[in-house]
């Protein structure tokens, strides 16, 4: 053990690491918004849609949940250009993450939708609301509340999973870390620092998403 650690160089490059971390968070947040939209549509079609569409959504969910995200990314970034569809690295990263998150969100939300008591749907229909209206006004909010913890942990998994987009050279935290370690030859220090940053982001988001749950679902539900 005669290795001398030099964390000074990491501190000097902290702004670049933080910029990478910011892009990681941005990617994950944008992909979550898109993925949630996909997930809501997917959950609706799985439970209320015409048979063929429900089946198509089921196929989408199974395919994306049973293949590695990295391979999905390669297909978007390396394969699609042969069909004339060329994406930027960051675009491919965002689209890949959104489609991937969408598959998980569809499945998670479907479970939430099915957990909403049948009587509420019947009541909504009796009030003369259409299927879509019942879904939008009665089911959706409750379904999200029921599966919120699962969605929150899926968000964290998505953020950590975004690390592999470094393989197609986006500029998020992992890619920046790779660049820095290869120019300074201080691999261990940089990976150690980046791992610490990821851990901080995870813990921060877990706390923040917990607070958001309280803010959206618990606040104002005081016994009057």
């Amino acid at each position, binding site marked *: 053990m005669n290795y001398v650690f030099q964390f000074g160089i990491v501190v000097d490059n902290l702004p670049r690491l933080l910029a990478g971390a910011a892009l990681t968070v941005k990617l994950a947040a944008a992909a979550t918004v898109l993925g949630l939209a996909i997930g809501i549509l997917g959950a609706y079609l799985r439970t209320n849609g015409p048979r063929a569409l429900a089946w198509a959504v089921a196929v989408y969910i199974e395919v994306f949940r049973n293949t*590695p995200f990295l391979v999905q990314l390669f297909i978007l970034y390396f394969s699609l250009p042969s069909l004339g569809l060329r994406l930027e690295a960051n675009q491919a990263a965002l689209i890949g993450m959104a489609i991937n998150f969408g598959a998980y969100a569809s499945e998670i939300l479907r479970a939430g939708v099915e957990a909403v008591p049948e009587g509420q749907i019947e009541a909504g229909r009796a009030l003369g609301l259409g299927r879509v209206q019942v879904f939008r006004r009665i089911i959706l909010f409750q379904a999200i509340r029921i599966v919120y913890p699962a969605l929150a942990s899926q968000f964290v998994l998505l953020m950590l999973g975004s690390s592999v987009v470094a393989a197609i050279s986006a500029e998020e935290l992992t890619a920046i870390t790779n660049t820095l370690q290869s120019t300074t030859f201080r691999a261990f220090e940089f990976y*150690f620092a980046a791992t610490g940053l990821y851990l901080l982001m995870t813990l921060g988001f877990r706390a923040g998403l917990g607070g958001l749950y309280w803010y959206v679902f618990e606040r104002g539900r005081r016994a009057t």
Partner: protein
Amino acid sequence: MRQFSTPEFFFLLKGLQWTIVLSLIALAVGGAFGFAIALLRVAPQRAVRLITSGYIQLFQGTPVLMQLFLVYYGLGVFFGLRLDPWTAVTVGFALYASAFLGEIWRGAIEAVPREQWEGAKALALGYWQVMRLVVLPQAVRIAIPPTVGFLVQLIKSTAIASIIGFVELTRAGQLMTNVTFQPMTIYPLVAVFYFLVCWPLSLASRRLERRMDLRRVTSGALAERTIAI
């Protein structure tokens, strides 16, 4: 410039073989460690529980790729040895699997009803006897579906090993793409291979879970009926 034909296809199959080997090694080694972690997570001593909780947080709160880099470069730094990707990847995935399995199995141990503990203690059994004879046999049954589910996650994660140069299925796909220039054939085929391995496991995990729920319902109903009689 080569055409994609039988030899290339077999090269991918060979890659798939390494994906499976790597997953099974990680499952076996990670399973052994994970079992110890699960036991420590429910230990009577608070300090032990906290330390193992930190270990799990560390692995569940950081990307697998970072864990691999740290093992790959870190072990080199601390022990002054240049690791080959094989060792780094195996150690990395075993550690990763141990944290996840430890957490899954802790949940299974805690899902065994408290009354079982209390009943066994009332029979004057010691902590380890209660654990070994009463709790673990029931926890194992509860743990099977989520463990199979995690195996799917593990197999998918091994694709990340390609980034540090370990030749498994994904890396084999990259290498074949480099010589044939047919990414539109190869990467979807790679995805199909993964799907054929993972999907049956996902189905099995779901089926096992459903069957356990049913069994719990029926045994509950049976118990009620016996009481009624």
